[in-house]
């Protein structure tokens, strides 16, 4: 194994993989990469396992020293990565020679950039996953975001890397969108006509107070037809729950597993990676689709992501 030294960590940099789904009965939400599509593509470009642990950076990246060198791939948002003053392109493998530094800055487009390393980032496994769960301080690197001075183990530098390339058009299909497709939530009928209309036609702004647990969406107040008391129940990732004041909250990867707020809609699986790339102050809209349509989209997306032939040249 080789080392990665964190010289500056950026705003919020954590170790993430595909998360630990399946522990709901223990009160544990899956966590995992906010943009699982970027993580997958970044890893596959390095011929890693699709869900190999990588560093997820948020809005502003860090500076990382590779004393032993490495092969890396940056995926997701463009944080203006540089090595020795030379810009490093996203979505392709790069060899970093021993002693070199990778420097990232503020985002130029989306919210999250993944630093994938050939051989992955080595952290202790917790409940079958390397993902950090910040809210509960579990998993990943000491259960927390990286700090200056942290030294992580990574896969070794191999000089005989194959220069895998994405097929033209793939990134266009997988591009994060600001229009999110939703299906009706379990309490959709509890909401007023105006609320349902506002969901379909209104614009919502991602509040600064948003994170991996959930995104607060400012916009039209989503009122209920009457004040009904709800019994807490399991809430899916991507659920749009509404507080008594009418505030919409989109539950995300580190979500509370259960909740007592009514849910008007739910972002479809195919569009969840777009949520992971939303920045504070972004304006988003929703578009209702049927369960059948959502399923077809998911099957098609899974086929694309599972086919190396369709992804790579």
């Amino acid at each position, binding site marked *: 194994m080789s080392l990665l030294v964190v010289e500056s960590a950026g705003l919020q940099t954590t170790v993430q993989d595909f998360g630990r*789904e*399946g*522990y*709901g*009965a*223990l*009160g*544990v939400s*899956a966590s995992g990469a906010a943009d699982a599509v970027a993580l997958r593509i970044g890893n596959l470009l390095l011929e890693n396992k699709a869900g190999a642990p990588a560093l997820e950076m948020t809005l502003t990246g860090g500076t990382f020293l590779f004393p032993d060198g490495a092969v890396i791939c940056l995926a997701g948002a463009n944080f203006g990565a540089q090595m020795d003053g030379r810009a490093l392109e996203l979505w392709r493998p790069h060899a970093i020679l021993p002693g070199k530094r990778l420097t990232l800055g503020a985002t130029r487009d989306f919210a999250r950039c993944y630093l994938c390393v050939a051989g992955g980032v080595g952290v202790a496994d*917790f409940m079958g996953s390397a993902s950090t*769960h910040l*809210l*509960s*301080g*579990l998993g990943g690197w000491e259960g927390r975001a990286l700090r200056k001075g942290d030294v992580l183990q990574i896969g070794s530098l191999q000089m005989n890397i194959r220069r895998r390339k994405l097929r033209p058009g793939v990134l266009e299909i997988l591009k994060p969108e600001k229009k999110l497709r939703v*299906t*009706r*939530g*379990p309490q959709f009928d509890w909401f007023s006509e105006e609320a349902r209309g506002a969901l379909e036609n209104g614009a919502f702004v991602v509040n600064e107070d948003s994170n991996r647990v959930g995104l607060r969406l400012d916009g039209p107040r989503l009122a209920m037809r009457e004040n009904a008391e709800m*019994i*807490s*129940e*399991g*809430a*899916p990732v*991507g*659920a749009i729950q509404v507080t008594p004041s009418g505030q919409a909250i989109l539950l995300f990867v580190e979500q*509370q*597993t*259960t*909740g007592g707020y009514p*849910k008007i809609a*739910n*972002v*479809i*699986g195919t569009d969840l990676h777009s949520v992971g790339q939303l920045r504070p102050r972004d304006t988003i809209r929703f578009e209702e689709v049927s*369960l*059948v349509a*959502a*399923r077809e989209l*998911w*099957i098609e997306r*899974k086929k694309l992501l599972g086919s190396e032939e369709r992804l790579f040249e």
Partner: protein
Amino acid sequence: MRFQAASDQTLLVYLGEEIGAATHERVMRLLRLLQREPIQWLRNIQPAYCSILITFDSSAVDHAEVQATISELENRTKKLPPVSHRLVEVPVCYGGEFGPDLDWVAEQRGLPADKVVELHIAPTYHAYFLGFAPGFAYLGDLAQEIAVPRLETPRKVVAAGSVGIAGRQTAIYPQATPGGWRLIGRTPLEIFRTDREPMGMIAIGDQVRFRPITQAEFLAARRA
């Protein structure tokens, strides 16, 4: 039983419409069966008071197929013996710095603080389900006489082991997390430890009793 699609990849199964032991028993039985059956498309099971949220691989099955499987399983639960309940005893040091909201609760409900404690330790609670954070068990039913609403603004950090109340529920915060429940005491026990099997001290279906301890006992337990 009632079904409701919650998202394109989840189905809510409602096993009752009211919080209580009878519905909890139905939730537990279906949960046990779901945990035992090797179902390929099953990705996650999230039980709650009256429901189970099923997350499934929607490329393999649709909502109707999941519903059919669950209906068939639920039928089979009727032949299962009653679920047995483990009893867990939790020592708690009430009030003072460990229970900063105890006096507020007492004042709100017009009771002396010791009466609040007495009412809190009286019942044997059901661990209805775990949610919010790893190992966080929703315990009920709290006595109506000490039921209070949550904080308007949750605390940014609640110490691990804090015992809180909200509505007809009580719970122990397993980790230091944000929290909106009214804190009346703290346990020296480590409710959730990653180096222990099982990691959580309280599992769904357990019965829980609280036992008051002094600050000296709390500190002694922490040192042990």
